[in-house]
């Protein structure tokens, strides 16, 4: 019941500021569209590049969406209430990052279907691409939230966040793009997907502690 109220709050707020939610999605589409323009619209080339392009664009899109995660709550004082709640901050944070992924990460996953077609990614492999994004983008959300929690009190936090978080996202990128790439060639892609699954478990269990710790530190002064 109390958890439903916390999730409901974020969903309601997201719905009332739908315009803001569109930003990462538009960013995702535009960045992906830049690659054929910069390289060469040859379908054979695009097909080999598609997994990497989609994954890099999705990674950046998730991260730019993450900067806002705690910012407004920090500014209007609601974050203080969450810290002062007897419910453990780790739980609250876990719920909120998950909700945030629902409204920012999930649309990217769905939209990747369209982008995959535009880049001539083979249809038989599209299930694996979506699967890799479904497992990978929540990890990115949690890692981004760590950065957001550490920089929420800083005026220039949005510039610092990618520097802090991008190096940490490299394994996700490697396994995610590898799964999609192998599937496109008709190879087995189970191994990288298992890695992504394992990393998702690890991130969901450990990162709330880092995020909660980051928020406590950020709100101290």
């Amino acid at each position, binding site marked *: 019941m109390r958890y439903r109220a916390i999730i409901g709050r974020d969903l309601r707020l997201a719905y009332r500021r739908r315009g803001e939610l569109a930003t990462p999605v538009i960013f995702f589409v535009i960045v992906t569209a830049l690659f054929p323009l910069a390289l060469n619209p040859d379908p054979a080339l695009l097909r080999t590049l598609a997994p990497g392009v989609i994954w890099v664009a999705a990674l950046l899109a998730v991260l730019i969406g993450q900067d806002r995660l705690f910012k407004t709550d920090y500014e209007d004082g609601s974050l203080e209430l969450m810290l002062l709640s007897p419910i453990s901050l780790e739980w609250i944070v876990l719920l909120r990052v998950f909700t945030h992924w629902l409204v920012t990460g999930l649309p990217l996953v769905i939209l990747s279907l369209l982008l995959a077609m535009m880049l001539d990614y083979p249809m038989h492999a599209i299930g694996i691409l979506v699967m890799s994004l479904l497992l990978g983008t929540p990890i990115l959300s949690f890692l981004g939230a760590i950065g957001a929690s550490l920089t929420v009190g800083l005026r220039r936090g949005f510039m610092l966040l990618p*520097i802090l978080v991008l190096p940490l996202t490299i394994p996700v990128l490697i396994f995610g793009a590898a799964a999609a790439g192998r599937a496109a060639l008709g190879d087995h892609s189970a191994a990288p997907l298992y890695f992504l699954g394992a990393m998702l478990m*690890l991130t969901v269990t450990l990162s709330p502690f880092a995020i909660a710790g980051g928020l406590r530190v950020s709100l101290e002064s």
Partner: protein
Amino acid sequence: MFVWFHKLASPPFFYRFAQKLAPWLGWLSLLVILAGLYGGLWLAPPDYQQGDGFRIIYVHVPSAMLSMFAYMVMATAAAIGLIWRMKLAHAVSAAVAPLGASFTFLALITGSLWGKPMWGTYWVWDARLTSELILLFLYLGYIALNHAFEDRRTGDRASAILALVGVVNIPIIHYSVQWWNTLHQGQTIFFGPKSEMPPSMYIPLFIMILGFMLFFAAFSLKRLQVEVLQRENKSAWVRELVETT
């Protein structure tokens, strides 16, 4: 013994202790490094495959080892600072980070200078070089966050959390990069010391590693003194120190 450690954790005692110890370690590291250089550049025979090009190993391997060792020191100190709220521990992390970043940078540069004659290009997306590059990014992120806050103590704790997140991630990053490397590279490239190196080659390497370690210890202490001074500049013992010197 425990009492001694406890004393060491008190900033004024530590400061004077470091003031005495650092120069000794510094000069000792210079001697050891000179001995290592003599052994490595002059006494050691050329490698039968790489000729004299292999001599880069005597600076590359110690740098690479220190780059990882420094991160471990940084993360351990960060954990101690967060768990036991020890101020000196945060200062240790902040002091070690620039040194670690320096050695990571050196490992990258010497690695790519070594790579040119061996591979024909300065940069190959080799697993070790790539991991080292990511390690440099982690250091830079830590340093940037540590200095981003107006209040030094907030910066200390925020960057300590980042260091711990990094230390959990490093094995995963390392493993994923290796996996990716075997996937795309196929052939393995000879890089680094072979197991059947003769003593005249590996003894100078050990001496150099020892020398770099001593250097690291000496100048971590020096940097740590600066960090402690910055953090304690209003306290009574610093006033006393300033007046007596």
